[in-house]
């Protein structure tokens, strides 16, 4: 009897303690080890530091502290799924898988568990169709938006005419690398350019054949869908064959300091598409230094502040935090559930004024997510590397994709996914 009473009082005290320690759980599927660690570290630092800032400066979001749950994936799909399984029971609000492979694995699992996924600018592009992918979000833009915006930039460079021009796509020979191919093929039919596809096998340490082919065929422009060491080697090889760097344009995952610094002066002029601002000249960084870095609470040593992938991690965290705020407003509950979070993400609206209020004026384009559009505005700008000052700068405004082409592809691909998986589209 005494034992039963003891158990009952223990259970009661645990439930009280649980209520007292309510929090907003944010898992972080990091990769600080493995072949892609140099990029993973920057993103993970930015993601963690923003939530640390909110805890230290504001006491969390809406008065509820954030509990950050890092889990190392080493960019390995199996480990990513293990991380998901081991953290979803903690009340995780949203997963940022940070890998197209992990995203593909988590789409059915997270949808069944009612937890939202934010594959920001990666993963399955057609998940932008919110009618079919209820729990997957890929705002502020997709791979197909990126491909289209790069082609638009090339059109601008060529005075609006690409007839007879050749664009080569150097891509990581994986699901990720192949994502833009259909879009580029459709756009080539529309604009009359020739598309040359050049695959590079993982990890991309040796690309001599690919760049000899480019040297022989002399395409007018080269686009790159690479990641990790593939990017550095490609930019190095392009510099070696003296390919004009201003005609070499990477996706936003081939756009970090890690990709260009090892190449030195040879990388000068290399371009890439950007989904957000560059550098650390934003008021928010003063707060990060004051509340996170100076007190020694930063995830890294502080040397990555303002770097592209740090900014991307920070941007992803800011978007998650704003979705939490939105969810709290909609539900009237501060300690939200994953279902609330999903609703918050679907109703996310960030305008220029809000960005300025957050200390990130003009850091990215305004974002409006809706039930049918989980891909956001699909805007991108072009950034260019200056090897003399070792800085990126945005050389264009944020511009939109060719919606006629991209939306048709999204509708087609998502409909095929719905048919394969017996999903009845939601009415929005």
């Amino acid at each position, binding site marked *: 009897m005494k034992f039963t009473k003891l158990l009952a009082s223990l259970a009661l005290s645990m439930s009280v303690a649980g209520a007292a320690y309510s929090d907003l759980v944010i898992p972080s599927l990091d990769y600080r080890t493995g072949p892609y660690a140099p990029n993973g570290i920057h993103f993970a630092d930015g993601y963690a530091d923003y939530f640390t800032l909110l805890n230290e400066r504001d006491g969390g979001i809406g008065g509820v502290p954030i509990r950050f749950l890092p889990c190392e994936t080493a960019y390995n799909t199996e480990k990513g799924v293990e991380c998901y399984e081991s953290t979803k029971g903690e009340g995780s609000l949203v997963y940022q898988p940070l890998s197209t492979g992990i995203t593909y694995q988590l789409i059915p699992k997270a949808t069944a568990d009612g937890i939202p996924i934010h594959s920001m600018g990666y993963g399955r592009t057609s998940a932008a169709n919110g009618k079919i992918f209820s729990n997957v979000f890929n705002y502020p833009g997709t791979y197909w938006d990126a491909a289209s915006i790069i082609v638009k930039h090339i059109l601008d460079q060529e005075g609006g005419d690409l007839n007879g021009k050749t664009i080569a796509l150097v891509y990581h020979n994986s699901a990720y690398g192949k994502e833009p191919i259909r879009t580029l093929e459709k756009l080539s039919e529309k604009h009359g350019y020739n598309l040359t596809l050049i695959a590079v096998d993982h990890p991309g340490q040796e690309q001599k054949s690919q760049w000899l082919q480019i040297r022989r065929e002399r395409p007018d422009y080269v686009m790159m869908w690479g990641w990790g060491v593939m990017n550095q080697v490609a930019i190095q090889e392009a510099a070696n064959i003296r390919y004009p760097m201003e005609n070499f344009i990477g996706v936003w995952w081939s756009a970090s300091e890690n990709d260009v610094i090892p190449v*030195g002066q040879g990388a000068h002029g290399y371009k890439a598409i950007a989904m957000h601002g560059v550098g650390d000249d934003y008021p928010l960084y003063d707060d990060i230094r004051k509340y996170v870095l100076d007190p020694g609470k930063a995830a890294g040593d502080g040397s990555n502040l303002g770097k592209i992938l740090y900014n991307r991690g920070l941007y992803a965290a800011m978007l998650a935090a704003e979705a939490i705020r939105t969810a709290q407003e909609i539900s009237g509950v501060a300690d939200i559930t994953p279902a609330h979070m999903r609703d918050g993400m679907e109703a996310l609206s960030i305008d220029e004024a809000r960005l300025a209020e957050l200390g990130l004026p003009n850091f990215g384009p305004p974002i409006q997510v809706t039930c049918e559009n989980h891909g956001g505005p699909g805007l991108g700008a072009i950034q260019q590397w200056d090897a003399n000052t070792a800085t990126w700068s945005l050389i264009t405004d944020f511009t939109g994709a060719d919606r006629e082409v991209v939306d048709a592809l999204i509708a087609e691909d998502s409909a095929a996914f719905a048919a394969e998986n017996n999903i009845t589209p939601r009415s929005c």
Partner: protein
Amino acid sequence: MTPDFLNTIEVILNGLMAGVMYSLVALGFVLIFKASGIFNYAQGVMALFAALTLVGFQTGQIPFAHLVNEIFGTQIHHWGPGMNNLIAILLTILVMVLFAWLVEKLVLKHLVNQEPIILFMATIGLAFFMEGVGDLMWGADLKTLDVGIPSGGSFWWEDVTRTWVSEGYEYYGMYIDLLDVWAAGIAVLLVTVLTLFSQYTKTGRALRAVADDHQAALTVGISLRSIWVIVWSIAGIVALVAGIMWGSKSGVQFSLSLIALKALPVLILGGFTSIPGAIVGGLIIGVGEKLFEFSIGPLVGGATENWFAYVLALFFLMFRPQGLFGERIIERV
């Protein structure tokens, strides 16, 4: 000559150069296998570790700084401006010798007379351990490696070969990367030194004796343990050379350890016990995969090099299981 013909020559030439880069990695495997019968899975990680250590010395980075900072709350990262290339290379060699001594002391000594598969498994463990230690010591950030080796296409070679084309054709000249030319020169030097060392020094002869027959070598007083330390030290130095060459191309990062994958078909083809085999195997793999990618690749969607190297190696395996230069397998019944 037509541009097509010259392009084919260019592909062969660049294949040879790529093959040399593969051989640099394969050499380390051969040295250890020859002397101890161990297939050293950790050879790729040794190249990574050596390159990380070299950059650490060059840039004046404090080893284990992240760990120290985490434990003691300090903010230390660098001890000074770094050191010049030669001193950094010499110190890295010392570290690799120390590493070899530790491997013998802590791993190999306890596994004498064990089955080759057990020794192989030990090197798998060693590879993961070293990767972790490398991360703790120097961090996982991308590091730029520059020891002053020139890189980029050779203008001189382009100009010379541009004149080889027949009249009426447009031709840009042949491409060759200066870094690859340097790698070829260094590989020739390395093989020459290794050959002279094994032929004309007492230690070299002892190495060959151990490679021929462990038991017989022991009976004439050769210390197996000393030989293992020497062999692993030499393999460490070869790993450093490979790490410098590959790291100069792509920066030093953890994917560098994957270069070992490029060495496996070279070893299958050239044989696990032959230094010239590692070189010739590398050249055949390099030329074979580049020619295949050039001629057949576009028809099958490209990216054929990784798998074609293994197909080529398997083809040779069917006819010469011991590899082109490996010791003939004789089994008496």
